[in-house]
């Protein structure tokens, strides 16, 4: 399944009209120990570039921007008790929320893995 990346260090993996969103390993390494994740509820409408999710680390609260627009179908319930999954497994078990995409054409402006890796290497 194709996976895309944003300059704000979110990833989105697309499976037809459905997509899963999380933050990258680089993002979690910069945030440090994550202690709480405020997740959107199922049914919430999200707009590309807006922040339906907030990740709390010991240091600060950081917005997570949605890489695409759509309706939230599910949030990662495991994070309520184990927010540290975002640190230990950010690009798999530490996913944040799932969307039903409203405009898949938005994805064309995102980076693929090679482009994202080059972007991070330049930071």
């Amino acid at each position, binding site marked *: 399944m194709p996976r895309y990346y944003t300059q704000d260090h979110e990833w989105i993996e697309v499976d037809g009209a459905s997509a899963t969103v999380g933050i990258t390993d680089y993002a979690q390494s910069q945030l440090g120990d994550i*202690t709480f994740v*405020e997740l959107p509820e199922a049914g919430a409408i999200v707009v590309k570039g807006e922040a339906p999710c907030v990740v709390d680390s010991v240091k600060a609260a950081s917005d997570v921007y949605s890489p695409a627009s759509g309706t939230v179908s599910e949030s990662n319930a495991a994070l309520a008790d184990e927010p540290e999954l975002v640190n230990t497994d950010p690009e798999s078990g530490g996913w944040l929320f799932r969307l039903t995409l409203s405009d898949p054409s938005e994805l064309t402006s995102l980076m693929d893995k090679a482009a994202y890796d080059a972007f991070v290497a330049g930071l």
Partner: protein
Amino acid sequence: MEEGEAPETGTLPLDAWHRARGGRMVEFAGYWMPVQYEGIIAEHLWTRESAGLFDVSHMGQLFVSGEGVEAALEAVLPIDFATLKPYGPRYSLLLDENGGILDDLMVTRWNSGFYLVVNGATKWEDIAHLREHLPDEVTLTHLEDSALLALQGPKAAEALGRVTTGEWPLSALTFMKGGQFKIAGIDAWISRSGYTGEDGFEIAIPAENAAQIADLICAQPEVKPIGLGARDSLRLEAGLPLYGHDLSDETSPIEADLAFAINKRRRAEGGFPGAERVQTELASGAPRKRIGLALDGRQAAREGAQVFVGDEKVGALTSGGFSPSLGHPIAMAYVAAAHCEHGTSLEVDVRGKRLPARVVSMPFVPHRYHR
């Protein structure tokens, strides 16, 4: 210790030392400083169970001496030197004429004068303020060639004792006592004090020897280097205020719950900046007070968040975060006097959501000083 606005970020004596150990460097108080090495929670918990080495060389170390120095310092600080024995640091406050707090600091009587340690972000203003208010016969020296380390934690005494020699063993020091020692043959001023609530020591050494001494202390199996991130979470759990956040020129000592820093004779006699306000608030209470809040769940409330009782805004947070030792969020807030009783239920607004909070006594985590 608010973040500074220095035009150019300075480097401290241990800059390369931190980088070599993987410290993530950030700008703080005008200097590059390590915010963390392996991670804030791990470093925090390590300090609580073993010993952590902190570089606090950004702080200002000053020496004040000369004819009439005691009277001159008593005119700018609410301290009573008649009760200050040699070599024991005492907490004090630099106040403005309105009783606002310009800085908090440690004052120690040495043989020939007084050793002051002030916050890094305020040190240049403190120096200017003191030079303006001290008479010509009194000399203020900025000890810029001195580095300052802190070793904190229940195993700090064991670790530091192993590498320290002196006229007395290090174990002769109790909380808030200090003395001259040697580490690896190098002169070190050591006091049993700190900013974590744990037993521990603050260690002033020549900057040129700082890396060698930091290496030696970190070679002890109990010790790891600890960054600013854990320093902040540790001091918050210990209920210790941070200047620029929990204290400012907008807050008075009584509001800040720091009446203990106004020494007994001075409360009665006054004669220090802001004495009128301090005496009034001691007699009839302050309109608001610095209190501790405990929150349920895991979502933290942070500096600036507003505190409510129903629709009424009754205060605001000055520090807040997740407590690694307690496993829930804690905060310091200034709250209207009517709502400061321990056990009072309040609400904190976090991004439009009301989080329930309870007024609790500080420290949040009990102090474990060696008295």
